[in-house]
């Protein structure tokens, strides 16, 4: 049996009914069924965007970073400072954050694409600590340890106010995440996306077929930083706060945990991982504010023991098993 290559590739990139169902549910469920959870839902959408940005570099391009929050935080500060200085229009704030974080990513990228393994892990971690220290030092600009004050987010399109009920926040966060998701989905099915996977699999071979590995990696790192920056900016705009911790190691580590939890290199893994982690934390810490992280720890260990390819990987395998039988 011979396969039609065009058909197979188109099939691989096709939009599945599950995807459509997922996004419709993402729109409807919080508004209709869980209106009290809109604040949480907004932050999940924002963190999922951040997580997707990490998936691009970690899952697809194989750049393991423990400092990606630096770009999230840079975006948050960019949008926050812009707003605190008098320009609170949200969409242009996002754009500004994307450019600033992307630029930072491009510069740091020169360094990142030249190291691997433990050194890469530690350099990204070190950069993340440096970012915190720099932000703390320039407290005139960033507000230092007290956090940035005076952020005022204008109405979305001049119509919808960002209120504590979270209707606007969620629509905004979901809308932006959806657009970014579409962009990333395109990217991973493009020749560029394929090249990234190939570099992750075997950089020696990509060099031998002529690929400029570092240029591709730097480009995706820039793009990923920019997206992380957008996510940070959304958090700054919807919560009207930015703190040093948004740049820090804990934020970086947490987002990596969410990604691995969901499964790397599949975009939806980032989304599912974020949803499960954040919902679990919200529910567990609501039930047991003092020792909730005991159960989070158990959850993480269980996932590794029983679902070594993340939750989505396990679901995919289960689905494959069921369709075979």
């Amino acid at each position, binding site marked *: 049996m011979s396969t039609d290559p065009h058909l197979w590739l188109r099939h691989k990139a096709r939009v599945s009914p599950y995807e459509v169902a997922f996004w419709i549910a993402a729109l409807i469920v919080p*508004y209709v069924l869980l209106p009290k959870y809109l604040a949480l839902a907004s932050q999940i959408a924002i963190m999922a965007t951040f997580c997707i940005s990490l998936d691009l570099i970690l899952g697809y391009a194989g750049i393991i970073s423990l400092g990606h929050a630096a770009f999230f935080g840079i975006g948050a500060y960019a949008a926050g400072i812009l707003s605190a200085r008098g320009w609170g229009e949200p969409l242009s704030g996002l754009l500004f954050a994307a450019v600033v974080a992307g630029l930072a990513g491009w510069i740091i990228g020169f360094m990142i694409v030249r190291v691997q393994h433990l050194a890469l892990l530690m350099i990204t971690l070190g950069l993340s600590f440096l970012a915190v220290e720099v932000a703390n030092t320039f407290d005139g600009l960033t507000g230092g*340890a007290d956090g940035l004050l005076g952020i005022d987010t204008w109405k979305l399109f001049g119509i919808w106010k960002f*209120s504590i*009920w*979270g209707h606007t926040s969620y629509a905004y966060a979901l809308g932006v995440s959806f657009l970014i998701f579409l962009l990333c989905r395109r990217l991973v099915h493009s020749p560029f996306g394929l090249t990234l996977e190939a570099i992750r699999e075997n950089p020696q071979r990509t060099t031998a077929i002529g690929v400029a590995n570092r240029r591709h990696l730097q480009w995706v790192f820039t793009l990923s930083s920019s997206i992380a920056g957008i996510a940070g900016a959304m958090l700054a705009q919807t919560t009207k706060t930015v703190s040093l911790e948004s740049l820090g190691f804990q934020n970086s580590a947490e987002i990596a945990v969410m990604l691995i939890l969901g499964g790397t290199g599949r975009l939806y893994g980032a989304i599912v991982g974020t949803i499960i982690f954040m919902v679990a934390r919200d529910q567990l810490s609501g039930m047991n*504010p003092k020792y909730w992280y005991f159960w989070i720890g158990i959850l993480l260990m269980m996932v590794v023991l029983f679902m070594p390819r993340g939750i989505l990987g396990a679901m995919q395998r289960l689905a494959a098993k069921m369709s075979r039988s």
Partner: protein
Amino acid sequence: MKRTFVPVLATTALLTVTLASTSALAQKTVKIGVTNVYSGQFADPGAQLDAGIKLYMQLHGDTVAGAKIQIIRRDVGGIAPPVAKRLAEELVVRERVDILAGNLLTPNALAVAGVSKDAEKFTVVMNAATPIITTKSPYMVRTSLTTSQLNHHFGEWVAKQGVKNVYTMVTNYGPGTSSGKSFEDAFKKKGGKVVGADKTPVVNPDFSPFVQRVAEAKPEALYVWVPGGTQPPALGKALAERGVTPANTKIFGQGELTDDAALEAMGKVALGIITAYHYNVHRDTPLNTRFVKAYRAANNGRDPDIYSIGGYDGMHLIYEVLKKTGGNTSGKAMIEAAKGMSWESPRGMMSIDPRTRDVVQTVWIREVKMKDGKPANIIIDHIDNAKDPDL
């Protein structure tokens, strides 16, 4: 998909707003949403604050003005304003709390202030000490302290004692730098001179190199600010090891510097250190003695500290305000009732400034002296009705 988006948004918005506004009436319980830190690096102060809240309710019952008090706790998990903000929003939207409380750390409290203002909820800051916090919501009061309240008056007091020059060493983050600045400003205004200023890192502090710099500068006096917990004893040890002691250098600091653990670590070299604080565990008044005894009984013998007293007095204020409003929990009614309220706390007399809604209290000046064969903080002076100078 985009076409259906706006109507869905509009209807659900309407629906929830109506639901939320109708159910706020006719209630017999008053819900207090506490955003606090229960895990991570700041878990311990968070636990002390929480113990203060618990003890007050244990001693005064959980019913006030005919309403049952219910506490709903949320863990911010550290310095995380977006989380604090979301939790406060959820407490309002999801749990329908009447009052917001807790607020251990400044960045979190600032985030909660936004919610307090938008939702018009009476909000008590039980610890965070940066002055501006209460200006961010008209429904916010504070029952802890402000950094400048203590350190401004302390700076003036030190200058008044004839000290001419001082070297300052503070932790390089908000509370540290702003305390240091208040102290320096007040001290300089009264004719003093700052001969050196160092900032120590927040985490992983090894104080010896900093103390060494002080030792070499040989200043007349040293002013120190470090957060409570592991740092005071560590600093105490470093000072003792490098021979920077009151015998050759006057040492001033905020009260954390000479807490019991630090005194134990320093031993007799601590004698003569002078600190300013708003709460003295060992101050011998009937009210305080009862409080400390009950606190120890409830917490495995642990002493109360400033976090505990912030939580305790915060609950006292809420109870008294509820009594005064007859159970009305609207933000406006409660904040009006709170303004100008004064009472005797285990820490001493305190009140809420009607203008700034911030705490007014006595600043106690203490010196480490021998008592019952052990170094202890002995009160040598006090500044009554001290307000924050900048608010």
